[in-house]
């Protein structure tokens, strides 16, 4: 089984970013998001970039890792760029083929969009690379607490996430076994044509779903027998400690975000 399924994207290292309280990191991420959306000049974006780079470089994780993390989103970025280039008609016309015109404004806006996207991806990566799933979950529960006022139970959400984290490795292992079993029965994924591949997915989905339901049923029973009652008051073995650096961290982001809004 792959280590990644258990630890998510967490990369173990000793850096000040790792030591931060997950609540601080989550809050900072929201502030960062606002700052990125509000920044609409290259100078502003450059300031945010410089700011992020400092954090990235001191996070104890090689920059390559962040680059790789953004890879799956490259097609989306390319699409966004093209979208602006093709549909923004203000500014100087640089190129015109038939009904398509490429303008300076379009290229600029496209570049900005990609830039923003990159910033966001790198910053979410900071969060997931430096925070273990357990910490992240605890942080989420704390940050979402205000939702209780509108009748949403953050405890339910975080329990759901815990269980997902707990069962993802098991379900992957099971799916892998079923895939091997079907290959043994003559349906090898690697050898199949595209149309047959679709059929194979069904042979995989049915048993995996049936298995997941069976597990869920048993798990609910196990949880009940161990005294779990939905939304009842409970204590927690894990707790988070807020430190001076966390306050400082948040303050930095407040300043940054405020700056972006005012400018």
């Amino acid at each position, binding site marked *: *089984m792959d280590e990644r399924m*258990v630890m998510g994207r967490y990369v173990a290292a000793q850096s000040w970013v790792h030591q931060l309280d997950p609540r601080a990191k989550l809050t900072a991420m929201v502030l960062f998001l606002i700052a990125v959306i509000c920044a609409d000049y290259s100078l502003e974006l450059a300031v945010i970039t410089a700011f992020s780079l400092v954090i990235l470089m001191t996070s104890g994780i090689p920059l390559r890792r962040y680059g790789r993390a953004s890879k799956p989103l490259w097609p989306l970025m390319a699409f966004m760029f093209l979208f602006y280039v093709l549909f923004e008609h203000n500014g100087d016309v640089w190129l015109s083929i038939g009904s398509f015109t490429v303008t300076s404004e379009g290229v600029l806006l496209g570049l900005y969009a990609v830039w923003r996207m990159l910033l966001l991806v790198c910053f979410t990566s900071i969060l997931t690379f430096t925070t273990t*799933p*357990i910490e992240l979950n605890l942080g989420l529960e704390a940050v979402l607490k205000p939702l209780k006022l509108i009748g949403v139970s953050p405890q339910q959400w975080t329990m759901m996430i*815990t*269980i997902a*984290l*707990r069962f993802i*490795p*098991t379900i992957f*292992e099971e799916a892998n076994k079923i895939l091997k079993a079907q290959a043994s029965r003559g349906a090898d994924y690697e050898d199949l044509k595209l149309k047959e591949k679709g059929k194979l997915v069904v042979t995989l989905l049915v048993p995996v779903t049936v298995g997941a339901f*069976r*597990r869920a049923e*048993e*798990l609910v*029973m*196990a*949880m*009940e*027998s*161990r*005294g*779990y*009652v939905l939304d*009842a*008051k*409970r*204590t*927690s*073995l*894990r*707790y988070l400690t807020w430190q001076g650096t966390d306050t400082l961290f948040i303050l930095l982001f407040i300043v940054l975000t405020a700056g972006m809004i005012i400018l």
Partner: protein
Amino acid sequence: MIRLENIHFQYPKREALFSDLKLHVPRGQWVSIVGPNGSGKSTLVKLVNGLLSPDSGTIHIDGTLLDGESVSDIRRRTGYLFQNPDNQFIATTVRDDIAFGMENRCVPRADMKQRIDAIAEQLGISEWLNRHPASLSGGQKQRVAIAGLLVLNPEIMIWDEATSMLDERSKQDMLLRLRHLHKNQGLTILSVTHDAEEILASDRAVVIRNGVIAADMSPIQLFEDRNLAWECRLQPPFSLALSLELREKGMDIGLHHHEEELMRALWPSLHVNK
């Protein structure tokens, strides 16, 4: 200490499973629950833990009537170990999982830590506390699950086919633990099992069939009744099977389920007839 009276139970849209079932188990007794497939062995022990409720009838645990109010306390007192070690883990580390039951009962944090360390030490699982449960073997997982139950100081242990997914070594290890819990900690034990060694180690065999307790006997009596044992999908261990077969064929050397005992009994009369 466990009293089930006039229990009626039926799953929706199916025939009645129990009609007027009655069972008393005194404190400290070790009872094996056996019976044909689908006879409701697992249902019975789920009733004791309050995971299922009878349609009528009463369940008392040590004088306390099992109802909506007492169910939480009764669940603490009746630790329930399930068959599939994978599906009773909730947390992502062993430590957090042992804590789960205590968290639900609002045990203060400092107290929890101390109790986790103590129980981990007792069961020899201290080294695994920070591991993800998926990285443990089946036998190791069951040991951790036992820790999660014992940490709540139960008086009754319910094992629902708890060893059936384990390899022989782990099974032996589990049986040893069960003996220990019974003898040294005086726990009352209800165990649904097909394991002959485990049944023979228990005090009493209760056969569930056709919705009632069809037989209530000593484990050895159960295996002596070959038809009944077969109906319960049980097979005697080799030594006992052999001594039963020998007795049937006219060579009575007594019933032995330990190989050494059998050998000792056989030895005097043994020689080679060419």
